[in-house]
Protein backbone atom coordinates (compact mmCIF):
# COMPACT_ATOMS: atom_id res chain seq x y z
CA UNK A 1 0.00 0.00 0.00
CA UNK A 2 1.35 3.43 -0.80
CA UNK A 3 0.94 6.48 1.37
CA UNK A 4 0.68 10.17 0.60
CA UNK A 5 1.35 12.42 3.56
CA UNK A 6 -1.15 15.28 3.57
CA UNK A 7 0.86 17.40 5.93
CA UNK A 8 4.45 17.65 7.00
CA UNK A 9 6.81 20.53 7.74
CA UNK A 10 10.20 21.51 6.32
CA UNK A 11 12.76 23.99 7.51
CA UNK A 12 15.10 24.57 10.45
CA UNK A 13 13.22 24.68 13.78
CA UNK A 14 14.18 26.89 16.71
CA UNK A 15 14.41 23.86 18.98
CA UNK A 16 14.25 20.17 18.39
CA UNK A 17 14.70 16.94 20.28
CA UNK A 18 17.96 15.08 19.94
CA UNK A 19 17.79 12.82 16.92
CA UNK A 20 14.68 14.47 15.49
CA UNK A 21 14.77 14.42 11.69
CA UNK A 22 14.18 17.99 10.51
CA UNK A 23 16.47 18.32 7.51
CA UNK A 24 14.79 17.66 4.18
CA UNK A 25 16.96 14.65 3.34
CA UNK A 26 16.21 13.15 6.76
CA UNK A 27 12.51 13.62 6.14
CA UNK A 28 12.85 11.99 2.74
CA UNK A 29 14.68 9.06 4.38
CA UNK A 30 11.87 8.47 6.84
CA UNK A 31 9.29 8.80 4.09
CA UNK A 32 11.12 6.12 2.10
CA UNK A 33 11.42 3.89 5.15
CA UNK A 34 7.69 4.21 5.74
CA UNK A 35 6.62 3.74 2.11
CA UNK A 36 5.33 7.31 1.87
CA UNK A 37 5.54 8.21 -1.81
CA UNK A 38 4.88 11.88 -1.52
CA UNK A 39 3.87 14.65 0.82
CA UNK A 40 2.34 18.07 1.05
CA UNK A 41 4.81 20.22 2.92
CA UNK A 42 4.70 23.67 4.42
CA UNK A 43 7.67 25.67 5.67
CA UNK A 44 8.40 26.46 9.29
CA UNK A 45 9.28 30.04 8.43
CA UNK A 46 5.84 30.51 6.87
CA UNK A 47 4.24 29.15 10.01
CA UNK A 48 6.44 30.68 12.68
CA UNK A 49 8.46 33.45 11.06
CA UNK A 50 7.15 35.43 8.12
CA UNK A 51 4.45 33.88 6.00
CA UNK A 52 5.22 35.11 2.49
CA UNK A 53 8.98 34.69 2.93
CA UNK A 54 8.42 31.20 4.24
CA UNK A 55 6.21 30.29 1.30
CA UNK A 56 8.99 31.43 -1.03
CA UNK A 57 11.61 29.47 0.91
CA UNK A 58 9.44 26.39 0.56
CA UNK A 59 9.39 26.62 -3.21
CA UNK A 60 13.16 26.87 -3.33
CA UNK A 61 13.60 24.02 -0.91
CA UNK A 62 11.48 21.55 -2.87
CA UNK A 63 12.24 22.76 -6.40
CA UNK A 64 14.19 19.61 -7.31
CA UNK A 65 12.21 17.18 -5.16
CA UNK A 66 9.19 15.86 -7.05
CA UNK A 67 7.90 13.86 -4.06
CA UNK A 68 7.25 17.03 -2.13
CA UNK A 69 4.39 19.32 -3.10
CA UNK A 70 3.95 22.79 -1.66
CA UNK A 71 1.39 23.83 0.93
CA UNK A 72 1.28 27.53 1.61
CA UNK A 73 0.48 29.18 4.89
CA UNK A 74 -2.06 31.96 4.55
CA UNK A 75 -3.63 34.80 6.46
CA UNK A 76 -6.12 37.58 5.69
CA UNK A 77 -4.73 40.39 3.54
CA UNK A 78 -5.11 43.04 6.24
CA UNK A 79 -3.21 46.20 5.26
CA UNK A 80 -2.13 44.22 2.17
CA UNK A 81 0.10 42.10 4.40
CA UNK A 82 -0.70 39.00 2.41
CA UNK A 83 -1.94 38.38 -1.12
CA UNK A 84 -5.50 39.25 -2.00
CA UNK A 85 -7.62 36.54 -3.59
CA UNK A 86 -6.81 37.18 -7.27
CA UNK A 87 -3.08 37.49 -6.71
CA UNK A 88 -3.12 34.44 -4.46
CA UNK A 89 -4.88 32.39 -7.10
CA UNK A 90 -2.36 33.41 -9.77
CA UNK A 91 0.60 32.70 -7.50
CA UNK A 92 -0.73 29.33 -6.42
CA UNK A 93 -1.44 28.34 -10.00
CA UNK A 94 1.98 29.40 -11.16
CA UNK A 95 3.74 27.49 -8.39
CA UNK A 96 1.65 24.33 -8.25
CA UNK A 97 0.27 25.08 -4.79
CA UNK A 98 -3.08 23.41 -4.18
CA UNK A 99 -3.63 23.64 -0.44
CA UNK A 100 -3.46 26.32 2.24
CA UNK A 101 -2.72 26.20 5.95
CA UNK A 102 -4.18 28.76 8.33
CA UNK A 103 -3.35 29.43 11.99
CA UNK A 104 -5.72 32.10 13.31
CA UNK A 105 -4.60 31.92 16.93
CA UNK A 106 -0.89 31.86 16.15
CA UNK A 107 -1.28 34.51 13.45
CA UNK A 108 -3.46 36.65 15.76
CA UNK A 109 -6.51 37.20 13.62
CA UNK A 110 -10.14 36.26 13.88
CA UNK A 111 -11.46 33.25 12.01
CA UNK A 112 -14.96 34.75 11.75
CA UNK A 113 -16.33 35.89 8.38
CA UNK A 114 -15.87 39.59 9.07
CA UNK A 115 -12.12 38.87 9.08
CA UNK A 116 -11.57 35.85 6.83
CA UNK A 117 -14.35 36.18 4.26
CA UNK A 118 -12.08 37.02 1.33
CA UNK A 119 -9.59 34.23 1.95
CA UNK A 120 -12.24 31.59 2.61
CA UNK A 121 -14.34 32.82 -0.28
CA UNK A 122 -11.37 32.17 -2.54
CA UNK A 123 -10.80 28.72 -1.01
CA UNK A 124 -14.47 27.83 -1.54
CA UNK A 125 -14.57 29.11 -5.11
CA UNK A 126 -11.38 27.30 -6.14
CA UNK A 127 -12.07 24.19 -4.02
CA UNK A 128 -8.77 24.64 -2.20
CA UNK A 129 -8.63 22.48 0.94
CA UNK A 130 -7.63 24.44 4.03
CA UNK A 131 -5.56 22.82 6.78
CA UNK A 132 -5.09 23.86 10.39
CA UNK A 133 -3.91 22.31 13.65
CA UNK A 134 -6.80 21.59 16.00
CA UNK A 135 -5.30 23.95 18.57
CA UNK A 136 -5.88 26.86 16.17
CA UNK A 137 -9.67 26.48 16.42
CA UNK A 138 -10.46 24.17 19.30
CA UNK A 139 -13.77 23.09 20.85
CA UNK A 140 -16.72 25.25 19.73
CA UNK A 141 -14.46 27.30 17.47
CA UNK A 142 -14.06 24.24 15.29
CA UNK A 143 -17.81 24.14 14.77
CA UNK A 144 -17.89 27.86 14.09
CA UNK A 145 -15.23 27.75 11.40
CA UNK A 146 -16.78 24.73 9.63
CA UNK A 147 -20.23 26.25 9.90
CA UNK A 148 -19.18 29.74 8.81
CA UNK A 149 -17.59 28.40 5.60
CA UNK A 150 -19.65 25.36 4.56
CA UNK A 151 -18.17 25.27 1.04
CA UNK A 152 -14.56 24.99 2.21
CA UNK A 153 -13.06 21.57 2.92
CA UNK A 154 -11.15 21.77 6.20
CA UNK A 155 -8.55 19.24 7.28
CA UNK A 156 -7.58 19.36 10.95
CA UNK A 157 -4.21 18.01 12.03
CA UNK A 158 -2.54 17.37 15.40
CA UNK A 159 -5.68 16.16 17.11
CA UNK A 160 -4.30 13.64 19.71
CA UNK A 161 -6.55 11.16 21.51
CA UNK A 162 -8.84 13.04 23.85
CA UNK A 163 -11.05 15.03 21.49
CA UNK A 164 -13.85 12.72 20.44
CA UNK A 165 -16.51 14.35 22.62
CA UNK A 166 -15.78 17.70 20.99
CA UNK A 167 -15.15 16.27 17.54
CA UNK A 168 -18.20 14.03 17.18
CA UNK A 169 -20.89 16.72 17.18
CA UNK A 170 -18.92 18.85 14.71
CA UNK A 171 -18.51 15.88 12.38
CA UNK A 172 -22.27 15.30 12.69
CA UNK A 173 -23.15 18.90 11.95
CA UNK A 174 -20.52 19.76 9.33
CA UNK A 175 -19.85 17.59 6.31
CA UNK A 176 -16.88 19.74 5.26
CA UNK A 177 -14.58 18.60 8.09
CA UNK A 178 -11.84 16.04 7.45
CA UNK A 179 -9.48 14.58 10.00
CA UNK A 180 -5.74 14.18 9.52
CA UNK A 181 -4.87 10.80 11.00
CA UNK A 182 -1.40 11.61 12.33
CA UNK A 183 -1.67 11.32 16.09
CA UNK A 184 -5.42 10.63 16.00
CA UNK A 185 -4.89 7.78 18.39
CA UNK A 186 -7.99 6.87 20.41
CA UNK A 187 -8.04 3.10 20.93
CA UNK A 188 -9.30 1.66 17.62
CA UNK A 189 -10.03 5.22 16.66
CA UNK A 190 -9.84 4.77 12.90
CA UNK A 191 -12.14 1.77 13.04
CA UNK A 192 -14.67 3.65 15.17
CA UNK A 193 -14.44 6.69 12.94
CA UNK A 194 -15.06 4.61 9.83
CA UNK A 195 -18.05 3.02 11.53
CA UNK A 196 -19.69 6.33 12.43
CA UNK A 197 -18.50 8.62 9.66
CA UNK A 198 -16.84 6.61 6.85
CA UNK A 199 -13.25 6.47 5.69
CA UNK A 200 -13.85 9.28 3.17
CA UNK A 201 -13.31 11.86 5.88
CA UNK A 202 -9.92 10.65 7.02
CA UNK A 203 -6.71 11.92 5.45
CA UNK A 204 -3.36 10.29 6.19
CA UNK A 205 -0.72 12.64 7.56
CA UNK A 206 2.37 12.36 9.74
CA UNK A 207 2.95 15.82 11.32
CA UNK A 208 6.66 15.23 10.55
CA UNK A 209 9.13 16.16 11.89
CA UNK A 210 7.60 16.56 15.38
CA UNK A 211 5.18 13.73 14.75
CA UNK A 212 6.11 10.17 13.95
CA UNK A 213 5.80 8.82 10.44
CA UNK A 214 6.42 5.27 11.63
CA UNK A 215 3.55 5.60 14.09
CA UNK A 216 1.23 7.24 11.57
CA UNK A 217 1.79 4.55 8.96
CA UNK A 218 1.41 1.74 11.49
CA UNK A 219 -1.85 3.20 12.73
CA UNK A 220 -3.40 2.80 9.30
CA UNK A 221 -1.74 -0.50 8.44
CA UNK A 222 -2.89 -2.16 11.64
CA UNK A 223 -6.36 -0.60 11.74
CA UNK A 224 -9.21 -3.11 11.75
CA UNK A 225 -10.79 -1.72 8.59
CA UNK A 226 -11.02 -2.98 5.02
CA UNK A 227 -8.25 -2.70 2.48
CA UNK A 228 -10.39 -0.30 0.50
CA UNK A 229 -10.82 1.96 3.51
CA UNK A 230 -7.06 1.89 4.16
CA UNK A 231 -6.34 2.88 0.56
CA UNK A 232 -8.78 5.78 0.79
CA UNK A 233 -7.16 7.01 3.97
CA UNK A 234 -3.58 6.38 2.88
CA UNK A 235 -3.81 8.33 -0.36
CA UNK A 236 -7.23 8.16 -2.03
CA UNK A 237 -9.00 10.93 -0.14
CA UNK A 238 -6.24 13.51 -0.39
CA UNK A 239 -5.76 12.70 -4.09
CA UNK A 240 -9.46 13.29 -4.65
CA UNK A 241 -9.42 16.58 -2.76
CA UNK A 242 -6.37 17.76 -4.68
CA UNK A 243 -7.95 16.67 -7.96
CA UNK A 244 -10.95 18.91 -7.30
CA UNK A 245 -8.89 22.09 -7.01
CA UNK A 246 -9.72 24.62 -9.74
CA UNK A 247 -7.28 27.51 -9.90
Amino acid at each position, binding site marked *: *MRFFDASCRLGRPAA*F*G*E*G*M*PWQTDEILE*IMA*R*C*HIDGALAYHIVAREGETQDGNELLLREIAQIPQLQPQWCALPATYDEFLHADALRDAMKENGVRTLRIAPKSFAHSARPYAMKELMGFAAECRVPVFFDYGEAPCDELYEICHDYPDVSFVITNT*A*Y*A*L*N*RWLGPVLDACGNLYLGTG*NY*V*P*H*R*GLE*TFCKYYAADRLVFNT*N*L*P*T*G*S*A*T*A*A*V*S*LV*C*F*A*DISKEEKELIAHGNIERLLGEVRL
Partner: protein
Amino acid sequence: MELKDHVFLSKELKDTFVVDVHIHVGGSTRYQKPRNDGDSVVYTMDRLGIDVTCASCSPGAYCDWMWGNEVCAEAHAGHPDRIKAYAVVNPNYEFDLDEYFVRDDRFFGLKAIPFVQGNLPIDCAGMQQYYAYADKHGLPVLFHAWQPSEVRDATAVARRYPNARFIFGHSGFTAVEEAVEACKLCDNVLLDTTISDIYDGALERIVSKVGADRVAYGTDLTAFECSHILGRVLLSRLTDTEKEKVLGLNAKEFLKL
Protein backbone atom coordinates in the same frame (compact mmCIF):
# COMPACT_ATOMS: atom_id res chain seq x y z
CA MET B 1 10.41 -11.78 7.28
CA GLU B 2 12.01 -8.86 9.07
CA LEU B 3 10.15 -7.33 11.96
CA LYS B 4 9.46 -4.13 10.07
CA ASP B 5 7.64 -6.05 7.35
CA HIS B 6 4.85 -6.85 9.79
CA VAL B 7 3.71 -3.25 9.55
CA PHE B 8 3.30 -3.11 5.79
CA LEU B 9 1.72 -6.54 5.66
CA SER B 10 -0.59 -5.63 8.55
CA LYS B 11 0.57 -8.89 10.08
CA GLU B 12 0.43 -9.77 13.77
CA LEU B 13 3.72 -10.66 15.46
CA LYS B 14 3.36 -14.41 15.77
CA ASP B 15 6.99 -15.39 16.28
CA THR B 16 8.04 -12.63 18.64
CA PHE B 17 7.21 -12.55 22.33
CA VAL B 18 5.57 -9.20 22.99
CA VAL B 19 4.75 -7.74 26.39
CA ASP B 20 3.08 -4.38 26.90
CA VAL B 21 4.16 -3.34 30.40
CA HIS B 22 1.88 -0.32 30.66
CA ILE B 23 -1.80 -0.42 29.71
CA HIS B 24 -5.09 0.68 31.23
CA VAL B 25 -8.57 -0.74 31.62
CA GLY B 26 -11.68 1.16 32.63
CA GLY B 27 -13.33 4.24 31.16
CA SER B 28 -12.75 7.93 31.72
CA THR B 29 -14.75 10.98 32.58
CA ARG B 30 -12.08 13.29 31.22
CA TYR B 31 -12.31 12.12 27.61
CA GLN B 32 -13.84 9.42 25.54
CA LYS B 33 -11.96 6.18 26.05
CA PRO B 34 -13.81 3.49 24.14
CA ARG B 35 -13.31 -0.31 24.27
CA ASN B 36 -11.59 -0.22 27.61
CA ASP B 37 -12.57 -3.62 29.06
CA GLY B 38 -10.53 -6.83 29.23
CA ASP B 39 -12.20 -8.48 26.24
CA SER B 40 -11.49 -5.45 24.05
CA VAL B 41 -7.88 -5.41 25.19
CA VAL B 42 -7.41 -9.07 24.26
CA TYR B 43 -9.08 -8.46 20.90
CA THR B 44 -6.46 -5.79 20.14
CA MET B 45 -3.68 -7.98 21.54
CA ASP B 46 -4.66 -10.85 19.24
CA ARG B 47 -4.81 -8.59 16.18
CA LEU B 48 -1.29 -7.34 16.77
CA GLY B 49 0.33 -10.44 18.27
CA ILE B 50 0.83 -9.10 21.79
CA ASP B 51 1.23 -11.97 24.23
CA VAL B 52 0.88 -10.31 27.61
CA THR B 53 -0.22 -6.90 28.85
CA CYS B 54 0.13 -5.39 32.33
CA ALA B 55 -2.84 -3.23 33.25
CA SER B 56 -4.00 -0.79 35.88
CA CYS B 57 -7.42 0.88 36.09
CA SER B 58 -6.85 4.49 35.09
CA PRO B 59 -10.11 6.04 36.33
CA GLY B 60 -9.40 4.39 39.67
CA ALA B 61 -6.27 6.48 40.03
CA TYR B 62 -8.41 9.62 39.80
CA CYS B 63 -11.18 8.57 42.13
CA ASP B 64 -12.07 5.43 44.06
CA TRP B 65 -8.91 3.42 43.66
CA MET B 66 -10.40 0.33 45.33
CA TRP B 67 -13.27 0.25 42.88
CA GLY B 68 -10.75 0.71 40.08
CA ASN B 69 -8.68 -2.21 41.34
CA GLU B 70 -11.73 -4.44 41.24
CA VAL B 71 -12.29 -3.41 37.60
CA CYS B 72 -8.70 -4.34 36.85
CA ALA B 73 -8.88 -7.63 38.73
CA GLU B 74 -11.98 -8.51 36.73
CA ALA B 75 -10.08 -7.93 33.48
CA HIS B 76 -7.31 -10.22 34.74
CA ALA B 77 -9.80 -12.86 35.88
CA GLY B 78 -11.31 -12.92 32.40
CA HIS B 79 -7.89 -13.46 30.77
CA PRO B 80 -5.46 -14.61 33.47
CA ASP B 81 -2.65 -15.57 31.11
CA ARG B 82 -2.96 -12.48 28.95
CA ILE B 83 -3.67 -9.55 31.28
CA LYS B 84 -1.66 -9.02 34.45
CA ALA B 85 -3.05 -6.56 36.98
CA TYR B 86 -1.31 -3.76 38.81
CA ALA B 87 -3.10 -2.50 41.90
CA VAL B 88 -3.34 1.30 42.04
CA VAL B 89 -2.36 2.57 45.49
CA ASN B 90 -3.37 5.88 47.06
CA PRO B 91 -1.15 7.70 49.58
CA ASN B 92 -4.15 9.41 51.20
CA TYR B 93 -5.30 6.09 52.62
CA GLU B 94 -3.70 3.46 54.81
CA PHE B 95 -4.20 0.05 53.32
CA ASP B 96 -2.92 -3.44 54.04
CA LEU B 97 -1.73 -4.81 50.71
CA ASP B 98 -1.99 -8.35 52.07
CA GLU B 99 -5.59 -8.02 50.95
CA TYR B 100 -4.41 -7.97 47.34
CA PHE B 101 -1.31 -10.14 47.45
CA VAL B 102 -1.81 -12.69 50.17
CA ARG B 103 -5.53 -13.28 50.53
CA ASP B 104 -5.73 -13.74 46.78
CA ASP B 105 -3.33 -13.49 43.86
CA ARG B 106 -5.26 -11.31 41.49
CA PHE B 107 -2.53 -8.66 41.34
CA PHE B 108 1.10 -8.93 40.40
CA GLY B 109 2.37 -5.41 41.04
CA LEU B 110 1.56 -1.82 41.98
CA LYS B 111 0.76 1.31 40.01
CA ALA B 112 1.98 4.55 41.62
CA ILE B 113 0.69 7.93 40.37
CA PRO B 114 0.41 10.16 43.46
CA PHE B 115 0.48 13.43 41.52
CA VAL B 116 -3.19 12.96 40.57
CA GLN B 117 -4.06 12.04 44.13
CA GLY B 118 -3.67 15.49 45.66
CA ASN B 119 -0.61 16.60 43.69
CA LEU B 120 1.66 14.52 45.92
CA PRO B 121 5.26 13.66 45.06
CA ILE B 122 6.32 10.11 44.24
CA ASP B 123 8.43 10.00 47.38
CA CYS B 124 5.73 11.33 49.74
CA ALA B 125 5.19 9.87 53.19
CA GLY B 126 1.91 8.19 52.28
CA MET B 127 3.54 6.07 49.57
CA GLN B 128 6.29 4.56 51.73
CA GLN B 129 3.99 1.85 53.11
CA TYR B 130 3.47 0.61 49.55
CA TYR B 131 7.10 0.76 48.46
CA ALA B 132 8.15 -1.09 51.59
CA TYR B 133 5.62 -3.80 50.81
CA ALA B 134 6.83 -4.05 47.22
CA ASP B 135 10.41 -4.31 48.46
CA LYS B 136 9.55 -7.01 50.98
CA HIS B 137 7.79 -9.13 48.36
CA GLY B 138 9.90 -8.25 45.32
CA LEU B 139 6.93 -6.77 43.45
CA PRO B 140 7.06 -4.66 40.30
CA VAL B 141 5.92 -1.05 40.61
CA LEU B 142 4.92 1.02 37.59
CA PHE B 143 5.54 4.73 38.05
CA HIS B 144 4.01 7.58 36.16
CA ALA B 145 7.43 9.24 35.81
CA TRP B 146 6.92 12.13 33.41
CA GLN B 147 8.46 15.27 34.91
CA PRO B 148 12.19 15.39 35.66
CA SER B 149 11.32 15.88 39.34
CA GLU B 150 9.21 12.73 39.28
CA VAL B 151 12.05 10.74 37.75
CA ARG B 152 14.47 12.03 40.37
CA ASP B 153 12.03 11.10 43.14
CA ALA B 154 11.45 7.71 41.55
CA THR B 155 15.21 7.12 41.41
CA ALA B 156 15.52 7.87 45.11
CA VAL B 157 12.73 5.37 45.81
CA ALA B 158 14.33 2.71 43.59
CA ARG B 159 17.62 3.08 45.44
CA ARG B 160 15.96 2.88 48.83
CA TYR B 161 13.99 -0.26 47.93
CA PRO B 162 16.43 -2.40 45.92
CA ASN B 163 14.37 -5.56 46.05
CA ALA B 164 11.34 -4.03 44.34
CA ARG B 165 11.41 -3.67 40.54
CA PHE B 166 10.46 -0.31 39.08
CA ILE B 167 9.26 0.65 35.64
CA PHE B 168 9.61 4.38 34.97
CA GLY B 169 6.69 5.03 32.62
CA HIS B 170 7.30 7.70 29.92
CA SER B 171 10.60 8.98 31.24
CA GLY B 172 12.85 7.87 28.39
CA PHE B 173 11.08 10.44 26.21
CA THR B 174 10.10 13.16 28.66
CA ALA B 175 12.99 13.37 31.12
CA VAL B 176 15.85 11.77 29.29
CA GLU B 177 18.78 12.94 31.39
CA GLU B 178 17.13 11.86 34.61
CA ALA B 179 16.09 8.52 33.12
CA VAL B 180 19.64 7.84 31.98
CA GLU B 181 20.93 8.68 35.44
CA ALA B 182 18.36 6.34 37.00
CA CYS B 183 19.51 3.46 34.79
CA LYS B 184 23.12 4.15 35.76
CA LEU B 185 22.41 4.17 39.48
CA CYS B 186 19.84 1.39 39.73
CA ASP B 187 19.72 -2.13 38.37
CA ASN B 188 16.09 -2.45 39.39
CA VAL B 189 14.77 0.12 36.91
CA LEU B 190 13.34 -0.36 33.43
CA LEU B 191 12.11 2.42 31.14
CA ASP B 192 9.10 2.06 28.85
CA THR B 193 8.06 3.37 25.43
CA THR B 194 4.77 4.86 26.56
CA ILE B 195 3.98 8.17 24.94
CA SER B 196 1.16 9.06 22.55
CA ASP B 197 3.20 11.27 20.26
CA ILE B 198 6.97 11.63 19.85
CA TYR B 199 9.30 12.13 16.93
CA ASP B 200 10.96 9.31 15.03
CA GLY B 201 14.45 8.88 16.42
CA ALA B 202 13.46 9.35 20.05
CA LEU B 203 13.47 5.60 20.72
CA GLU B 204 16.88 5.19 19.10
CA ARG B 205 18.08 8.06 21.24
CA ILE B 206 17.19 6.52 24.60
CA VAL B 207 18.35 3.06 23.54
CA SER B 208 21.70 4.51 22.51
CA LYS B 209 22.08 5.99 26.00
CA VAL B 210 20.87 3.19 28.27
CA GLY B 211 21.10 0.12 26.05
CA ALA B 212 18.38 -1.98 24.47
CA ASP B 213 18.21 -4.11 27.65
CA ARG B 214 16.70 -1.28 29.68
CA VAL B 215 13.69 -0.29 27.58
CA ALA B 216 10.38 -2.15 27.41
CA TYR B 217 7.39 -1.80 25.15
CA GLY B 218 4.57 0.12 26.83
CA THR B 219 1.65 2.00 25.26
CA ASP B 220 -1.03 3.36 27.64
CA LEU B 221 -3.59 1.26 25.70
CA THR B 222 -6.69 1.82 26.09
CA ALA B 223 -6.14 5.49 26.84
CA PHE B 224 -5.28 5.53 23.20
CA GLU B 225 -4.13 3.20 20.45
CA CYS B 226 -1.08 0.97 20.63
CA SER B 227 -0.49 -0.04 17.03
CA HIS B 228 1.28 3.23 16.28
CA ILE B 229 3.71 2.72 19.16
CA LEU B 230 4.31 -0.82 17.96
CA GLY B 231 5.07 0.67 14.58
CA ARG B 232 7.53 3.13 16.09
CA VAL B 233 9.51 0.17 17.42
CA LEU B 234 9.17 -2.02 14.34
CA LEU B 235 10.12 0.72 11.89
CA SER B 236 12.88 2.21 14.02
CA ARG B 237 16.56 1.91 13.19
CA LEU B 238 17.13 -0.61 15.98
CA THR B 239 18.30 -4.06 14.91
CA ASP B 240 15.79 -6.88 15.06
CA THR B 241 17.62 -8.27 18.08
CA GLU B 242 17.25 -4.95 19.87
CA LYS B 243 13.62 -4.73 18.83
CA GLU B 244 12.93 -8.19 20.26
CA LYS B 245 14.44 -7.16 23.58
CA VAL B 246 12.33 -4.00 23.70
CA LEU B 247 9.18 -5.74 22.55
CA GLY B 248 9.18 -8.51 25.12
CA LEU B 249 12.39 -10.18 26.24
CA ASN B 250 13.35 -7.42 28.69
CA ALA B 251 9.95 -7.44 30.33
CA LYS B 252 9.85 -11.24 30.44
CA GLU B 253 13.00 -11.29 32.53
CA PHE B 254 12.34 -8.16 34.58
CA LEU B 255 8.77 -9.06 35.50
CA LYS B 256 9.51 -12.79 35.81
CA LEU B 257 6.80 -13.72 33.33
